[in-house]
């Protein structure tokens, strides 16, 4: 008889795990996830958003277990799907996704081995799963290789990977509900039970893929809309964008200008076990505490601001409609980011800011459906795609990809609302001129 153990979870109710899964949950490696916030400093915007990668990993594990029970035949594969989901986030470091651009920039190119640099925490997760001594105690070599294969899609049929990492995976199915619950925002709620019960495994050539029954079409629409609304309301909330950019800039300055050796080492993955050993000693709180002890440093200056919630403000915000000239529009929204630094320097010079404290940032709100559009929808006699089947998304999806360009700086607006608006107009007019000149160095173009 299986030894089932329960954990009470605010999102899913009881999460059941078997004794061998409890052994993994009790490792120092997994317990470390308790000290990594799921949404970095989003609690500066949503005070309730203090949940962690630990809660989320357990939640995703629970969802994956339900999906595996409904869809996977083999007990061995069911077990692997549960374990892979449980361990899918062990490679996250302090401030998780927010600090990933720094990790990508400073890590040795050798470690990517042809894989997308944006997936660096997945590469670190794979390294940890394969070589961590605690995991080796509870999982065989073959288990660990299969788990890594399941996470990167090289093991088994496609649907096994899609349960763990795909358009409607257990990861998203948990984090939408969890982030919604902890932020207090209701937009991430969808009918998870209905979605689970209408997912199917569908034969596709020599492969098996995850599909949805036509009966679940509305549950999938609701899930996709939940993802879109959570992106606009929480993940891309205007204050959260500022805090994320301040964290990234602070770490960048700590490495590049303060020359803090341990900080550079923390964000320079070289594929070695020594790096991993050190990396696993860090979490959000330790990083915050350590940088706050770096007296007189630029990184401390910005983290002081974050801790005290003295945040930068958005002094410039434009979208494509602000640039009637197509080449300037293309330059700002579809060109390279090479102009960000010279623009930051010009803004700093004109308005008297420290150039390190001016942050140019392009933000994109992607279409509501991305790869979900290709999820097969099963009818009695035919198979279509979600993109073609969903009457709702046929009409709205293509309209909702937005691009904005922001500049953040440490301003303190003085006076009343009228004076604030006047100052904002002054910033906007001057910065538009700077952009026009950078985009068209040989000619002056009319303003919007």
């Amino acid at each position, binding site marked *: 008889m299986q030894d089932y153990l329960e954990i009470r979870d605010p999102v899913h109710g009881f999460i059941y795990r078997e004794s061998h899964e409890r052994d993994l949950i009790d490792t120092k490696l997994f317990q470390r996830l308790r000290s990594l916030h799921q949404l970095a400093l989003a609690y500066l915007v949503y005070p309730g958003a203090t949940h962690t990668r630990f809660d989320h990993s357990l939640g995703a594990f629970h969802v994956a277990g339900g999906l595996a029970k409904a869809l996977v035949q083999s007990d061995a594969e069911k077990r692997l799907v549960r374990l892979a989901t449980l361990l899918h986030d062990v490679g996250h470091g302090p401030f998780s996704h927010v600090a990933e651009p720094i990790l990508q920039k400073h890590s040795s190119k050798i470690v990517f081995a042809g894989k*997308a640099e944006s997936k660096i925490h997945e590469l670190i997760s794979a390294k940890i799963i394969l070589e961590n001594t605690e995991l080796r105690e509870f999982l065989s070599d073959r288990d660990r290789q299969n788990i890594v294969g399941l996470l990167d899609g090289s093991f088994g049929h*496609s649907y096994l990977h899609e349960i763990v990492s795909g358009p409607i995976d257990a990861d998203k199915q948990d984090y939408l509900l969890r982030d919604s619950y902890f932020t207090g925002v209701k937009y991430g709620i969808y009918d998870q039970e209905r979605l689970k019960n209408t997912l199917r495994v*569908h*034969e*596709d*050539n*020599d492969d098996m*893929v995850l*599909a949805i029954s036509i009966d679940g079409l509305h549950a999938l629409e609701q899930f996709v809309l939940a993802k879109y609304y959570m992106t606009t309301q929480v993940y891309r909330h205007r204050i959260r964008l500022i805090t994320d950019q301040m964290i990234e800039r602070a770490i960048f300055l700590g490495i590049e200008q303060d020359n803090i050796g341990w900080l550079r080492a923390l964000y320079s993955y070289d594929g070695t076990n020594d790096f991993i050993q050190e990396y696993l000693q860090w979490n959000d709180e330790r990083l915050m505490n350590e940088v706050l002890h770096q007296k007189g440093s630029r990184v401390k200056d910005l983290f002081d601001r974050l801790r005290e919630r003295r945040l930068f403000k958005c002094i410039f915000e434009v979208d*494509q409609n602000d640039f009637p000239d*197509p*080449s300037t*529009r*293309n330059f700002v*929204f*579809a*060109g*390279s980011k090479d102009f960000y630094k010279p623009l930051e320097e010009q803004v700093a010079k004109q308005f008297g800011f420290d150039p390190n404290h001016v942050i140019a940032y392009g933000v*994109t709100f*992607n*279409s509501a459906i*991305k*790869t979900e*559009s*290709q999820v*097969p929808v099963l*009818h009695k006699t*035919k*198979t279509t*795609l979600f993109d*073609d*089947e969903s*009457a709702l998304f*046929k009409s709205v999806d*293509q309209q909702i*990809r*937005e*691009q904005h360009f922001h500049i953040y700086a440490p301003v303190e607006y003085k006076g009343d609302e009228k004076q604030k608006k006047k100052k904002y107009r002054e910033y906007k007019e001057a910065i538009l001129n700077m952009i026009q000149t950078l985009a068209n160095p040989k000619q002056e173009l009319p303003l919007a």
Partner: protein
Amino acid sequence: MKPTDFLLCLIDASGGKVPGRTLLQKRAFFVTELIGEDFGLKFDAHYYGPYSATVEGTTTQLKNLGFLQESSTGFGILSDGFEVRRYDYSLTNDGEQLLKRLRTTAEYGTIKAATDRVLAAGDPNYVELSIAAKAYFLLKKKGGGSMSVAELIKQAEKYNWSISPESVDRAVDFLSSVGLAAGG
């Protein structure tokens, strides 16, 4: 070259317009295959053949930036009540302005030459291109190298799609014509 520039060049090389999202996906796939560079489009295996979320997102981006115009055509209502629609993309005047610079680049010449090869190989419709793309993508993933017509037909017959033998023949002819399949 960035995905935005690639798609502008591809649509320009296609005569300034491409009828249908699926056709755009598959044409982009074959042009990148013929050139041997993916321009950051990252095609993945999907049910109806290789699909790039980047092509989808970039097309919407170009539309929202005012460089592409989208128009849709209805093809009637199916028995289950859903309407069949096709979304066509064409360059706007602003898009044409950007092309003036792009047409002077070496990459444009390469994309134009590859697109011409695709169009000259019978200009298949989106169904035939989808059959060809899926068969080619799966067989390339398995072993790489040039595959025989017999292998391609065998591969396409495994699809659970409603496709006619004539469509499979035209897909195979297309792959042979552009040099992505060996005869026999």
